């Protein structure tokens, strides 16, 4: 099994240090943007919420792709990691009607 893994490693690009540092820089920059969206810029709540969700997804994608190495795995492995998250969005959509019921009680 280790041999199979070594094959994957061999397929990875060299100079990953630079890639990891770029990812770090982007992640820190996104965090700074997130904080400034609340503390510095005055933006409508809907725009701010949309921007924050997009930024969170960007951060999660960067971490999953580079720090967890999904970028270098087979696509089949990416499906295992990503499909449950898509199902999660469906679950969220499914429970939203309950929220309106809760609101109706207040």
């Amino acid at each position, binding site marked *: *099994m280790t041999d199979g893994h070594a094959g994957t490693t061999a397929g990875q690009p060299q100079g990953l240090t630079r890639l990891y540092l770029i990812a770090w820089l982007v992640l820190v920059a996104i965090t700074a943007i997130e904080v400034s969206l609340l503390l510095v810029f005055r933006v409508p709540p809907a725009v701010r919420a949309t921007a924050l969700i997009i930024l969170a997804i960007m951060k*999660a994608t960067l*971490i999953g792709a580079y720090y967890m190495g999904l970028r270098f795995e087979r696509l089949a492995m990416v499906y295992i*990691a990503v499909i449950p998250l898509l199902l*999660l969005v469906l679950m969220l959509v499914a429970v939203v009607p*309950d929220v309106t019921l809760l*609101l109706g009680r207040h």
Partner: protein
Amino acid sequence: MTTGAADARERGDLTARWSGGRSPWDLSWGKLMMWLFLISDAMTFAALLVGLWVARLGSPAWPNRLEIMNLQFVAAMTVILICSSTTMALAVYAARQGARRQAVWFLTATIAAGCLFAGMQATEWSHFIREGARLTGNPWGVPAFSFTFFVITGLHGAHVLGGIVYLWIMADRIARGLSSAEGLEIAGLYWGFVDLVWVFIWSSIYLL
């Protein structure tokens, strides 16, 4: 013509890959098991975060976090966790290159950042408790607010503490030559997940 040949080769590869007798994911069992654990763990966090959002959207009011929590402080925690993920990835890379000593140094930096994060989270909790927040109620009149905060950040904090112990053991094993680079890569998956989950906790509890 070339595209047709490439398609045929790809179809052949797919058949060979999925027709049994070998893992179609080309992963070692340890790495695959860690992924499966992390996905199930992600479902636990997902359920808690969905619960938080149902409680929040169903509540007529939700306290203004900017008045209660120190956003800059938690942003610093977030940056520290990002730094620790970077040093973890660098540790794995060093181990893969055979630079064991360097890998141990990067791991030590990761553990130090993890400890700092956990310490800052303890400070954040103390501040919140001093403000009057409890698991069952708080001065802002929305019990679900402090309940979800303590449960979600608490579970994440437990993951950080568990991760520190895990990385400590791995650093020792790598230093003594008992663990392979792949063993460290599996630990790196866990630590990356701790950072990944924090992205959504940070957004849901503090930002949105």
